[in-house]
């Protein structure tokens, strides 16, 4: 039965399966044999071969390639497949009429059994082993974090004593990228948070006829908590990921290795300028977010009939300089944590393009976890000391 498929190049390859007697079969293939025309032919010849090999007795197969007009790598793979199946079943395989120019290529694959590797069984990990590995990974991560913190602290002090050796160009770039470029998004989010916070508070306070207290409440909440927190989360999303991707790409390209072998500390070279930028930028952005948020709150309260002057006076009675200072100190710590986590994850990047993406993701997640952790510690200290 001739098997015919459409070829993209006009001449279809045709394969014919003939059974002269129960033990002797012949495959004749004609035309142009290429990877596009072979799919169907290959599968159907193999089906017939498999069915034939299941019958008992001798299996002598002749493969006639004398009418092939052109052959490519796929054609050779087809030949090899048929031969391999014959061998596996204990039959014989005879190739006739192959154009001699294809023979060197066929020889390249000798012995063909190499092309059919026995799939190795995947090592199974027991629950205990995988738990152990996970625990080890966690310990390694903590160890990396502690050692990184130590190095970073040492290099930051070193920079204080040698300010001329800090890479101020990198610092300015990082500060512009993390700071000035973030003004629009921080402003927008701060404004919306100010509006939402005031509306939500007003809905509740209205029930007790205490709408006039919304102003002081919102302002205090913004200055102490919301301003630093939303700024930090935006910075984590923007800058921490950017630092991780930047340093991660450098790690993948061996640029970090080049610094180390050049006797330079990658922490001093790459991390210190970025952490300094974080220290500068985070409190400034927070202050900016505070102002925008409070203004948004003032406008919102106008809807509830609270004039600006009342809002202002209420705010002055509730918010001290200490509150603003507490928020800004927290923001500074957030800034350090965000840039440091971004840089750490960047330096921990593995190999390959996907590793950079993983590092950026880890940087954002770890930054946010650390922000919440620092915030929690800060809240506890505030509660204990009243600051």
């Amino acid at each position: 039965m001739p098997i015919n498929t459409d070829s993209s190049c006009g001449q279809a390859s045709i394969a014919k399966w003939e059974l002269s007697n129960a033990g002797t079969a012949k495959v004749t293939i004609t035309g142009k044999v290429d990877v596009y025309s072979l799919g169907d032919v290959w599968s159907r010849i193999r089906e017939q071969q498999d069915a034939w090999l299941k019958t008992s007795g001798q299996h002598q197969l002749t493969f006639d390639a004398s009418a092939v007009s052109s052959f490519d790598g796929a054609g050779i793979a087809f030949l090899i497949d048929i031969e391999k199946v014959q061998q596996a079943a204990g039959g014989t395989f005879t190739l006739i009429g192959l154009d001699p120019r294809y023979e060197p290529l066929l020889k390249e694959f000798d012995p063909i059994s190499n092309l059919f590797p026995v799939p190795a069984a995947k090592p199974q990990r027991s629950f205990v082993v995988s738990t152990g590995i996970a625990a080890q990974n966690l310990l390694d991560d903590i160890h990396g974090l502690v050692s990184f913190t130590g190095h970073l602290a040492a290099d930051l002090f070193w920079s204080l004593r040698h300010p001329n050796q800090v890479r101020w160009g990198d610092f300015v770039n990082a500060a512009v990228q993390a700071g000035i470029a973030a003004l629009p998004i921080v402003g927008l989010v701060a404004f919306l948070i100010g509006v939402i916070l005031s509306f939500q508070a007003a809905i509740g306070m209205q029930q007790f006829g205490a709408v006039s207290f919304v102003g002081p409440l919102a302002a205090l909440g913004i200055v102490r908590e919301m301003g630093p927190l939303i700024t930090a989360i935006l910075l984590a999303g923007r800058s921490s990921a950017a630092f991780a991707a930047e340093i991660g790409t450098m790690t993948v390209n061996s640029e970090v290795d080049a610094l180390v072998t050049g006797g330079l500390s990658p922490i001093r070279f790459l991390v210190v300028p970025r952490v300094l930028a974080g220290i500068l930028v985070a409190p400034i952005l927070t202050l900016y977010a505070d102002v925008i948020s409070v203004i948004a709150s003032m406008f919102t309260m106008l809807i509830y009939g609270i004039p600006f002057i009342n809002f202002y006076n209420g705010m002055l009675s509730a918010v001290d300089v200490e509150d603003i200072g507490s928020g800004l100190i927290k923001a500074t710590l957030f800034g350090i944590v965000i840039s440091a986590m971004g840089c750490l994850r960047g330096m921990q990047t593995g190999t390959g393009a996907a590793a950079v993406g993983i590092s950026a993701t880890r940087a954002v997640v770890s930054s946010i976890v650390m922000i919440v952790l620092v915030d929690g510690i800060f809240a506890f200290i505030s509660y204990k000391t009243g600051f």
Partner: protein
Amino acid sequence: MTALNSSTFAVDVQNLTVGYGSNVLMQDLNFTVNIGEIFVILGGSGCGKSSLLKNLFGLYQPLAGNVLIEGQNITTAQGAERQKIMTSFGVMYQQGALFGSMNLLENVTLFMEEYTDLSQDQMNLLARCKLDLVGLLPYETYMPSEISGGMQKRAAIARAMALDPKILFLDEPSAGLDPITSADLDSTIQDLSKNLGITFIIVSHELASIYAIADKVIMLDKGAKGIIAEGDPKVLRDTSQDPRVHQFFNRIMSKDAA
């Protein structure tokens, strides 16, 4: 169906100007590559060899001129026609450009999955043949990041051959390979060219490899913004009067040449 392969040239370059915006690297290039030929593009670092290659296979649009691949104009082709031309050749990039999230076998089978109706087993066998040709059969399950740079290059050649294209563009295939692997690769290229009639267009600096395999070379020069020599590399080495060509083929240092 259009009269395919009516052209006698694998690649026909007509008045090609290569560059980026106002920065012209090569002006008014004209050359042809015969079917089944091993054609090598030479030239000093930074003269625009890789850029020319990217113009030839249609990744970049040339500033002017046309490139015909098997008689079809890739410069003006659009949509399905362009895609069809694109599948008629394979490309190996300088850095390998393997897909990092796939192992070597999957890297090679990816294009087969898209363009053929072979079964998974058939594709795997075919991909193993390709990997065997470049000596990477034992590494089929390795990820690109787990093998060396030279191995990545060879795997990239295997991937370029996945669909058995009639034309292969190789950007510095033997740079960074050890001499034995490099010689093996040369012999594979010659076998494929001689036996399957595959045309190779190769950017290379490796003189030993060029003498061994090239049927024809063109030499580009940054200052001349064009081809300064064309022909058999051994003939050029022995007879060229051009000092730049003489210098290149005889490895003379730049300060000694003048």
